């Protein structure tokens, strides 16, 4: 009851502001390009910066749309209701599920097939991957990534800020419409320059979940309770990668070293297959023991069976790798003993030698200075 009242109040106040400020300029004073058509009237309310609410969990949600920004995003040609298809009236009802990315666009057609544009093919792959979760997930499934976890759809692309007219002018010669050309240029340049995350960014993205200790512990606990099997390195995936040679070299900014996806995803049709990550115990995974050699050979051309048996996620954890644990322990002890031992020995020897009468400078001087001028250096031979 309480929720309904809150929501109603918000919608009412939203509408009130809409009517008062209907003629107001959008924020920033920039008019949306002609391509952005608010034919559904969504901006009546959603153009206001304070359009939002605090959820029952105390989370702040903004429903504010900046038309001039939206008009520069990849979805600029898609009507709001193509994705928000559950909205049938204004003011709309409480949103239960939100946008799913496997719908079909009514306003955009796939120019290659002529069919309605859709992310369905990639969604189907994602659905079979170990990362799949429904839009409204429960329990630990909420930790899994939905499309927008990775596809943050950055609104600013420096490559698009100033278009190179020496390129686009040429296009305009035949295509005539500059806006059309500019949009195509942005479309292609974004895919050429920015569509793939750098190796470092990929590691950062994967680590944002797999390196989250609380998340990992939660999943380990649930898997144990449910009797489910997790990867042997599940617990150490992020930290061990960082310690590995691949991780270290990628950290240097070296792009040829393997990042997470270089091993865990199929390289054939990479952009589709990164959505189809399977656990290492599944034969479909490139890191399954049957596929490992082939995966290593993607980069290490001369790798053999022995090479594929090396551990790409080495740790010094006792339960994961006791050999390395004890080796490090021994090295640490040896280091400490050598450090203390050598200083002690030097101090002991100094004390002994001073007692012997050989002080900091020898009686006849030091190794540099001679006290006795009578014993001239030039007298010495041999």
């Amino acid at each position, binding site marked *: 009851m309480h929720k309904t009242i809150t929501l109603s109040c918000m919608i009412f106040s939203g509408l009130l502001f809409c009517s008062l400020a209907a003629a107001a300029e959008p924020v920033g004073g920039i008019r949306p390009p002609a391509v952005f058509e608010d034919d559904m009237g969504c901006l009546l309310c959603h153009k206001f910066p304070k359009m939002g609410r605090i959820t029952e969990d105390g989370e702040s949600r903004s429903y504010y749309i900046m038309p001039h920004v939206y008009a520069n995003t990849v979805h600029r040609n898609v009507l709001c209701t193509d994705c928000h298809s559950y909205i049938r009236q204004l003011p709309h009802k409480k949103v239960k599920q939100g946008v799913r990315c496997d719908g079909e666009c009514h306003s955009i057609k796939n120019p290659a097939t002529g069919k309605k544009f859709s992310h369905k093919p990639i969604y189907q792959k994602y659905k079979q991957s170990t990362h799949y979760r429904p839009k409204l997930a429960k329990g630990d499934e909420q930790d899994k990534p939905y499309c927008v976890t990775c596809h943050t759809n950055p609104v600013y692309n420096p490559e698009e800020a100033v278009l190179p007219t020496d390129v686009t002018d040429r296009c305009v010669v035949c295509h005539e419409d500059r806006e059309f050309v500019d949009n195509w240029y942005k479309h292609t340049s974004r895919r050429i320059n920015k569509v793939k995350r750098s190796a470092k960014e990929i590691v950062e993205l994967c680590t944002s979940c797999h390196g989250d200790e609380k998340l990992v512990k939660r999943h380990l606990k649930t898997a144990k309770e449910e009797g489910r099997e997790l990867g042997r390195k599940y617990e150490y995936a992020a930290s061990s990668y960082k310690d590995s040679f691949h991780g270290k070299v990628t950290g240097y900014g070296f792009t040829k070293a393997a990042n997470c996806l270089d091993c865990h995803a199929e390289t054939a049709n990479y952009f589709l297959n990164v959505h189809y990550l399977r656990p290492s115990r599944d034969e479909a995974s490139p890191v399954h023991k049957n596929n490992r050699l082939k995966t290593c050979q993607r980069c290490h051309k001369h790798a053999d069976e022995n090479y594929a048996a090396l551990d790409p996620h080495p740790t010094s954890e006792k339960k994961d790798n006791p050999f390395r644990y004890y080796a490090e322990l021994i090295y640490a002890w040896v280091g400490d003993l050598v450090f203390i031992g050598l200083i002690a020995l030097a101090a002991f020897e100094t004390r002994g030698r001073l007692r012997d009468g050989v002080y900091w400078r*020898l009686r006849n001087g030091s190794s540099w200075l001679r006290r006795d001028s009578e014993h001239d250096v030039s007298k010495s031979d041999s």
Partner: protein
Amino acid sequence: MKLSSETQRVLEVSMGINKTSDAERREIEALIARIPDNRIQLYQYVVSNPLGDLPRYSIHIRIQHLLTFITFLTLAFTGLPIAFFEHFWAVPVNNMLGGVNVTRIIHRALASVMIFAMAYHIATIVLGSFVKIKQGRFESARSMIPAMKDVHDFKDDMLHFAGKRSHRPEMDKFMYKQKLHYFAAAFGNIVMIVSGSSFMFPEFWASILPVSIGAHFQEMMRISHPHEALLALLVIAFWHWYNVHLAPGRFPMQWTFLTGKITREHQMEEHFLEYLRCLVEIPRERIHLRDMLEAMEQAEKENSNTAAGG
């Protein structure tokens, strides 16, 4: 001084190798007999050139030492910011060198110079020993080969430093410290080369090693490279630099690594057996020793006269 049977044997071997005449033999033995039991007493009468008096290292060894210490320090300087590249101090070092990827190239280039120095050294000692064996002049005691004597020397030296022994043991050309240090450096070099090559050629090492130890080897090498480097730095900073720079009597520096010569007092103190060989091999050295002994005996006589007169 009366030589111990062991020391006497070293002298005999040296005189045998050098085919010392009977007259010279008597001269040497007479001189040695005049040396006081505590050799340190001769210090104040030593006439010595700080740049060194007696031959110790050939030009090859000096070049190898130079190559090794230059590459060691620069390898440490480039290797540490590679290993700890995320640390605050590593960032400016890498930036100064042109970025961590340039540091890695410099590190590998220096490593190849270090490997060359090692190969050069192995060639020198193998060929040098071969020539000496052929000439009948090879003495294992005069080489780096460890012997039980080193253990006894270590014990005696510690007793001396603890004040429980009047004088330092009569040690050979290479004393226990130098042997330990030499083999530590040799071992360290091999570890660094093998582990470094395991980073560059992991496929090669995996292919020649049995599958059961391949992974352990690779991991051992991963942790060994930085650990061994730090260990070597500790040994160099706290032991080698102490011994050659800071130890009383050695401060501020010995010139041996450049001139290849050791000072007379140092040879007598720490390498007495080698000093005896010098007496056999370098006739001029006998004159220096006689001068020293005469100066000492004269001073003692004056002292006793003053004491009697007083």
